[in-house]
């Protein structure tokens, strides 16, 4: 243990928080957690709730795993990680059911499926198993926010073009409908979520050349 303590928000720690938002985004760069990105992004509200749920699970889960990391036997670590993730997901699910029942209905199985979200297990394995609790906490917040950011951007476009609303409020003026504008039904179907995610990846790689593979 070094005697000088690292400040809580050292530049290294800040990086843990910010790189997953862009350069190491779990969805657009690591291509993890795609299934839920396709399924819950029809409207912004459920996408936002989903994002918050994943942030909660990943941040708390990372801290728990990080605290336990020295006592977990390597051979059973996946089981332990699963138990932690499952317990947290059940907690989140119960809270959603208690306070935002309607949205919990809309999210249906996808809250339960947070446990299979590759981002969760990926961060447990790759980061919190070998790092201290505080950096793990930041890493969890960062990665889950990177996921949530993409979710909300995708949901914004899908809701705007598919239903003509944002956060449930109609934003397309009535006169546009009167002269023949129609909401795009394809936007509501999952394939369009894939194309929107693809477009975000396209734009990101056009901006950040280092991300382009051969």
């Amino acid at each position, binding site marked *: 243990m070094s005697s000088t303590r690292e400040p809580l928000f050292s530049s290294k720690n800040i990086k843990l928080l910010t790189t997953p938002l862009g350069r190491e985004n779990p969805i657009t760069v690591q291509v993890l957690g795609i299934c839920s990105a396709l399924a819950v992004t029809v409207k912004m509200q459920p996408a936002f709730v989903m994002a918050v749920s994943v942030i909660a699970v990943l941040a708390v889960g990372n801290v728990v795993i990080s605290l336990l990391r020295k006592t977990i036997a390597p051979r059973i670590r996946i089981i332990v990680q699963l138990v932690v993730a499952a317990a947290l997901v059940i907690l989140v699910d119960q809270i959603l059911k208690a306070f935002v029942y309607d949205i919990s209905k809309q999210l249906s199985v996808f809250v339960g499926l947070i446990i299979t979200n590759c981002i969760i297990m990926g961060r447990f394995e790759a980061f919190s198993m070998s790092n201290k609790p505080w950096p793990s906490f930041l890493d969890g917040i960062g990665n889950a926010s990177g996921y949530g950011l993409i979710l909300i951007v995708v949901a914004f476009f899908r809701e705007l073009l598919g239903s003509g609303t944002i956060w449930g409020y109609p934003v397309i003026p009535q006169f546009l409908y009167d002269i*023949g504008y129609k909401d*795009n*039904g394809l936007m509501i179907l999952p394939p369009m979520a894939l194309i929107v995610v693809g477009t975000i990846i*396209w734009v990101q790689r056009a901006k950040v050349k280092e991300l382009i593979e051969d």
Partner: protein
Amino acid sequence: MNAIRKYLDKIKPNFQKGGKLEYLHSTFDAFETFLFVPNKTTFSGSHIRDYMDMKRTMSMVVLALIPILLFGMWNVGYQHFIANSVESGFWANMLFGARKVLPILIVSYVVGLGIEFAFAQIRGHEVNEGFLVTGFLIPLIVPPDIPLWMVALATAFAVIFGKEVFGGTGMNILNPALTARAFLFFAYPQDMSGEKVWVADALSGATPLGKLMVNEPLASLPSPSDMFFGFIPGSVGETSTLLILLGGLFLIYTGIASWKIIISVFAGGYALALLFNFLGPIIAPENVYMAMPAYYHLIIGGFAFGAVYMATDPVTAAQTNRGKWIYGLLIGILAVLIRVLNPAYPEGMMLAILLMNVFAPLIDYYVVKANINKRLKRFQKTQLATT
């Protein structure tokens, strides 16, 4: 012609490296090669000279489509006046149809070529001619009453996500014109199906496919000859099987379309329709679709048009000879399968071709692999015999 050549030579330096309009070089290049045979020669590799470059190929396809477009215009007018019970002559029909169809054609070309040119400039490569055909096909496969902004949106979607993201002409997995149609079909179903959209400015006019969907008796269909010659409501260019077949013969004669694909699509569809004829009375006696004479399938809806102009797209079809047979047969079978058994999709041709577009590389892969294995076995046999 000479004057144009001189003018082009005069302005050419502006577009070459270092010229003040360098950023427009591919636009200039596109117009120059459109008007004249390119005078470029290759420096290495093969030196085969053939006038059938991509521009000529595309022009041939457009040539084969022109009669279909003209008939489509006439038919749009003809159906409109019939539906409104007005007597009308040839020119009245033609004029009405042209007023409906030409705007679609113009919108499709302007939007599509605009995007093509923009991408060519940004990426610094030549403008490809692929869109000349795609832009011509799009108006032929949409209902005459389609709002123009939808055509624009679908064309943009098809060119960007169907073609340019994969690297442009020749690299696309899906047929761009069908991508545009699929986009419209799923995004704006009210404007792409049902009985309201097929006849311009009329309250109703069900296509044969639409009638079959709601299980109307066979007797309510138009006569087979009407369906063959194309005097029925439908998408602009798909109604006349006769003209489509003539266009197909022209394309086979010029070596552009593969006769293997065309024949196997028809064969596959016809075979499955026959099978349904036999099975119909046993498994679903109330389904009119199953009892319909098998050859009806080939002359209603977009079956023939898809078989001749869409399935044969050299970029997205299977490339190996055996692969072409498999690819075509499966398109025909799937199209009839979707039509008869899936009540949500009255026209299976579009979905069948798009699906097989995706599978074409896989088919080719296994055909090539089977060939390698066959030859490997033969080789081993001779090895055994000699040792």
